[in-house]
């Protein structure tokens, strides 16, 4: 769909001539390959180029500054929030927290965020990104309430791409529950391309939750690069059902001893939804743990993909790494693809993975039906049980209930 790109750097305001030339270079790099296609090993199961070609007539970068500031705030639990509209930071509220402990500002494109991803979406983001935020939590500060980042997209976005970058830093011995809340109910096709850098310093802990609120025609891509220091903890919960296309590309670097990371995902996909979870866990230091559990329920013509890689460096003895992907395929037109990879150079390690895909257990359905439960409900019960399991490890009760409710809504229809 190369001929239909309409990317203009001069739509972006307040750039120095140096920035413009750097952005132009990145755009040229993007043009060399265009959107990633299946010839790229990382995009083997999700050919973004053809997906976009089939659904977009043209694609342009967004220059629309939204006037809407109103959006529905979650009222199930008390929280701090940051609100983004089409990527731009428009409001924030940290009234539950101590002052001067949290630093929040617009992402500064002058201190370049260097991520060594080679894919073309990264170049496109470098060329066109505006907005986004930088968040820094002070040393020894544990947030009293969770932080919700409202990723609002205005309904007027049509055949546009929104690019932005975020940076999150947790300084030593700090703690944060972060909820990325995707909020859009537009019927128009648009794309979001987000790069995020996360640094979890010594003894800190971050719960990173991503949840999609309602069914929308958003084509979502987010690349997260995270670096973990000693004794740190980084947990991810991904509940992105409802997005038309989604690829969450997560890189976790366990750079120092005794750090832990986990990725949990539960997806219930319908219609032609296509979602991919891609992880790369680099065990660069000894005594680190990583855990991944990815669950998919695939209805209609949907497609679920899991590509996970565990890399263990030769010095990383006593590594414990685990990967599990499970899929329920409920329709012959649905598809599940997985590529769980292990690349291991240290011998005193425990690394394993498992992957299963198949249909729902008809004996269980029969059992429920024999107890007087209608078939449709029986299916829903089993799917609920299958997916909700991934939330078990989450300790924050209110958030857990909230997520459970959202997940059930994703399963039982909006």
């Amino acid at each position, binding site marked *: 769909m190369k001929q239909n790109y309409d990317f203009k750097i001069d739509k972006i305001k307040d750039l120095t001539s140096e920035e413009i030339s750097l952005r132009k270079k990145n755009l040229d790099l993007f043009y060399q390959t265009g959107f990633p296609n299946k010839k790229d090993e990382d995009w083997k199961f999700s050919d973004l180029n053809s997906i976009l070609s089939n659904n977009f007539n043209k694609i342009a970068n967004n220059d629309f500054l939204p006037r809407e500031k109103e959006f529905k705030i979650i009222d199930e639990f008390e929280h701090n929030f940051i609100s983004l509209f089409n990527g731009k930071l428009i409001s924030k509220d940290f009234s539950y927290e101590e002052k001067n402990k949290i630093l929040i500002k617009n992402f500064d494109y002058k201190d370049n965020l260097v991520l060594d991803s080679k894919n073309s979406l990264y170049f496109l983001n470098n060329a066109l990104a505006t907005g986004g935020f930088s968040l820094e939590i002070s040393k020894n500060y544990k947030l009293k309430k969770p932080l919700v980042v409202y990723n609002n997209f205005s309904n007027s976005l049509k055949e546009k791409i929104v690019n932005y970058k975020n940076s999150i830093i947790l300084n030593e011995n700090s703690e944060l529950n972060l909820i990325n809340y995707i909020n859009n109910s537009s019927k128009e096709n648009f794309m979001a391309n987000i790069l995020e850098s996360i640094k979890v310093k010594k003894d800190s802990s971050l719960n990173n939750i991503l949840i999609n609120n309602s069914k929308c025609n958003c084509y979502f891509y987010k690349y997260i690069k995270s670096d973990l220091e000693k004794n740190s903890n980084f947990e991810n919960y991904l509940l992105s059902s409802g997005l038309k296309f989604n690829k969450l590309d997560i890189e976790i670097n366990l750079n120092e001893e005794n750090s832990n990371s986990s990725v949990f995902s539960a997806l219930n996909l319908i219609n032609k939804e296509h979602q991919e979870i891609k992880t790369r866990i680099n065990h660069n230091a000894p005594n680190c743990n990583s855990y991944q559990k990815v669950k998919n329920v695939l209805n209609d013509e949907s497609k679920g993909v899991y590509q996970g890689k565990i890399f263990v460096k030769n010095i990383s003895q006593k590594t414990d790494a685990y990967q599990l992907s499970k899929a329920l395929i409920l329709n012959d037109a649905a598809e*599940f693809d997985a590529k769980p990879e292990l690349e291991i150079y240290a011998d005193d390690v425990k690394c394993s993975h498992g992957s299963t895909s198949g249909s729902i257990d008809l004996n269980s359905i029969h059992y429920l039906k024999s107890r007087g439960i209608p078939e449709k409900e029986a299916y829903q019960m089993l799917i609920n049980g299958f997916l909700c399991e991934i939330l078990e490890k989450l300790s924050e009760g209110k958030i857990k209930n909230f997520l459970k409710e959202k997940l059930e809504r994703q399963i039982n229809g909006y």
Partner: protein
Amino acid sequence: MKTEDLKNNKEYKYGFTTDVENIRSPKGLSEETIRFISNIKKEPKWMLDWRLKAYNRLKVLKEPDWQKPKYPKIDYQDLYYYSAPKSASDKPKSLDEIDPKILETYKKLGIPLVEQKRLNGIAVDAVFDSVSVATTFKDELTKKGIIFCSISEAIQKHPDLVKKYLGSVIPISDHYFATLNSAVFTDGSFVYIPPNTKCPMELSTYFRINASETGQFERTLIIADKGSYVSYLEGCTAPMRDENQLHAANVELVALDDAEIKYSTVQNWYPGDEKGVGGIYNFVTKRGACRGKNSKISWTQVETGSAITWKYPSCILQGDNSVGEFYSIAITNNFQKADTGTKMIHLGKNTKSKIISKGISAGNADNMYRGLVEIKNKAINSRNYTQCDSLLMGNKCGAHTTPYIKNNNATSTIEHEATTTKINEEQLYYCNQRGLDQEEAVSLIVNGFCKEVLQQLPMEFAVEAQKLVAISLEGSVG
């Protein structure tokens, strides 16, 4: 490394060379070379045309580079594509006419060519460099209607069968190495089992690379007609040289309705010395098609040799209820590298496949399992089970697993599991305590780790394979 050093290298007992006169093709890859090969084998025109078609296709293909073990660029113009012992050019009619030196070689290798043949009851087709030297037990097989001969002979005598099946599983325009083989293949085995026949003995081929600067490109074609059964064994060795030699073979299996093919390989090509100099590049394409209903193809491989092993024996499960199996042990030590696994492509209904892969890595070696399980939309009620376990010895080696799993319908089930660990220290301690030394203990534990695969091998091979497993790991623990 000098020749004398090579002679002193006792680790690889098949490292000797045999001094026989050779006939060689012109050096390099060209139409001339292909015409030379075709001419010397007195091939019909259709065969030459087939080769040239492959050669033309090869010109536009690129050598693949996605594999994990990288290797220096191969200069295809610096190789001899045909090398044959001179005495074989007037093809011997019986074993008595074969150059005694070659027979001596096979004796050293322990192949039951002459005296052992009656005892073992294995029919052997031995391929020395590029040509098939002798096929034993021919008469007994002919009585049953079984054709077991070199592929060159089959091209002359059974052109209909060859025309029908050659290239039907691995087409001319497959990947680079398969196409190269199609253009320049020199010899190999041909097996045809007629309908409702159970092959009364194990069929076997022994491959040996003897001449230097040659590549070996053999082609094996096995057809099991309706309701038949055959078990086929393949073994390989090569002399020690400090150059890397290319081995790019193609093996095609076709199983029709209710037929079963069992294909076992013990691959012990020269792996290079402990510094990683020399050794064979084993880039082989093996593919079987379960074309008929209820057919079955089973691959078993023990890969201990070669500097680089890069192969994926695969099954295309076309017929309804067909079964594909893959059992593999890949052992890499020193600087050896392996990138091996399988592809199971389910097309027919109720098809089943099973993959058991055991990778063992020691020294500075790299061992990779790469596999594809794909259940297509129409392959309803299909099943796959995959298990790949890796064992690491030391922290300079690597063990990797890259499975591709694609499930495209709601009634099929795929299960995959993989683990990577080191040898259990408690088990080692237990063995030591009972008086086994470190090496014996390791060999015992590793053999136990591989048991599921070793069990699949025919008796004669199982013993050899167990010994090989122990030898390959000598000196890796300590």
